[in-house]
């Protein structure tokens, strides 16, 4: 655990000084990277820590973004106040949606969560109540104003995302050190054993869903501010699959792993934009190769020095 603290601190320092050395287009990529890392960490709480196969995480990311966009554009609520519903709505929806199906076994849960995401996309594409703007989405989201000061430069948005990521890392650290984090860890290892030790599996899994979704909602709100627009394709199943893949390619429950995963899945495609047509082919090959060479992710998490003969989770 010590090692991941060091990595987190180095990472935060590097990202903190990043705007000084980059032009505005790289700053935009950096902001997106920060926002997507927050979403990836929130996915990691559900998938990597609690071990619930969630493949619809873009739904909660999107709920946050749409909450900010709808409240600001249609109802004129200042952005700063829309943060609260952008966190609360995904949180409540996570409990309402995941509640009845949280007991499902792995793959069944995975398909049900894909279903939720598809329903969400269909609802916003059909422009429900004339609020979501259909396939085009919503444009013209206001800038953040605090006491009359406008935070509209790319640098300001970058540092707001940076604060959000720092906050997320703090939450993750506290989670790891708390009863909740330990319970999730046991459930992930063996949910039947956890249950028989008196851990309320259903409650902690739902807790992971609610916490992860709330963080994703905050990131969604930030995403809406960054692009000052939201549209359905930013939150479809393909995005969910990306978040799912980030965690597993990087390494479940591993801080450097999730950061590397986000970098590989979101920043590298930005860099290789010239190979637009072939890049997803290469991408797919890379996913297969990574899993064959590093089945537990690029930077898997380590828990102390467990002798090899005691590790049963190689299978």
């Amino acid at each position, binding site marked *: 655990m010590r090692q991941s603290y060091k990595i987190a601190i180095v990472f935060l320092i590097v990202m903190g000084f990043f705007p000084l050395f980059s032009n505005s287009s790289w700053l935009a990529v950096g902001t997106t990277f920060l926002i997507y890392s927050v979403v990836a960490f929130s996915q990691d709480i559900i998938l990597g820590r609690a071990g619930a196969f969630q493949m619809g995480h873009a739904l909660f990311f999107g709920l946050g973004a749409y909450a900010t966009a709808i409240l600001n554009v249609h109802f004129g609520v200042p952005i700063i106040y829309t943060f609260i519903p952008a966190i609360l709505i995904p949180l409540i929806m996570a409990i309402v949606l995941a509640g009845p199906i949280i007991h499902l076994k792995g793959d069944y849960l995975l398909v049900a969560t894909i*279903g939720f995401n598809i329903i969400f996309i269909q609802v916003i594409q*059909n422009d429900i109540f004339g609020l979501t703007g259909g396939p085009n989405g919503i444009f013209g989201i206001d800038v953040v104003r605090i006491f009359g000061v406008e935070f509209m430069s790319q640098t300001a948005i970058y540092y707001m995302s940076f604060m959000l990521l720092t906050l997320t890392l703090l939450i993750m650290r506290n989670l790891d050190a708390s009863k909740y984090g330990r319970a999730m860890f046991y459930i992930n290892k063996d949910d039947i054993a956890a249950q028989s030790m008196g851990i309320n599996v259903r409650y902690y899994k739902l807790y992971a869903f609610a916490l992860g979704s709330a963080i994703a909602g905050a990131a969604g709100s930030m995403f809406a501010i960054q692009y000052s627009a939201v549209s359905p394709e930013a939150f479809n199943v393909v995005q969910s699959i990306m978040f799912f893949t980030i965690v597993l390619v990087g390494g479940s429950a591993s801080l450097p792993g999730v950061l590397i995963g986000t970098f590989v899945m979101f920043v590298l495609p930005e860099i290789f934009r010239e190979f637009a047509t072939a890049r997803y082919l290469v991408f797919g090959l890379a996913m297969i190769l990574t899993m064959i060479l590093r089945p537990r992710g690029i930077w898997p998490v380590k828990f102390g020095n467990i002798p090899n003969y005691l590790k049963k989770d*190689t299978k």
Partner: protein
Amino acid sequence: MDIFLQQLINGLTVGSLYALVALGYTMVYGVMKLINFAHGDLVALSAFAGLTIYVEIFGEGTNSLFIVLSVFVITALIIAFVGVLLERLAYRPLRTAPRLSAVVSALGASLVIQNSIMLIWGPNMKIFPSNLFPSTIWNLNGVVFTFTQVMIMGISALLMVGLYIFINKTKMGTAIRATAIDQDAAKLMGINVNRVIMTIFIIGSALGAVAGLFIGINYRGITFDMGWTYGLNAFVAAIMGGIGNIPGAMLGGILLGLFNAMISGYISSEWAETFTFVLLVVILIFRPTGILGETIAEKV
């Protein structure tokens, strides 16, 4: 009543297609406990491969029983080969890895196949030739059905009966069922598990190939990313029926096809996917392992 009968025909047609594709998912899942996300893309690949074989080898406009059969057989062989290759390269190295690693590998394989189709045949919609099957249309008191639809329902039913007999009555079928129950025990009994897995990939891919050709012939327009749509629906069908269970996949496919058709006929096709997944979640709430999930001990 006319709407009902018409949608019944349409639903059974699309349901048969879903069932054929769902069988590929369910057989692989039954033996390997892996969601083969690339299966839907094999279906799309089959439509494109069939199109090229028909137009390039036999020439567009020709048609005879021999040509139609050859197109089906050659395409099925090619797709079966790709399926086996997929298993060899992307899944076999991960057989002892954590389960989710294989899922990511499957997602990667899906991207690879989808984008290969796009690079080879281009990103635009291709139109499947209409004259592979005779364009006969019957009209029974206002209910219209085509020769193609009858063929789809008939051949799918035939293939499913054939598969059922193969799984339940042959030696290889018994080996497949044994491997599905317990791979290690099957190995100890002298079953060649690699051969079993190869067989299910051959059968699953070939059934998917037939479905892909039918999709091309019936709906005409084929796109490189259509595998995702059909694959997801078929996969939902397999889950509804109880994944890993062969009769479950058939039942789930037909049920989902009928449900979709009735929704489009009576409510609106705009919300079709929403209704599909609401139905799935409702089924899963009441039967967490699908309709035929636990009630049947035989799992493949």
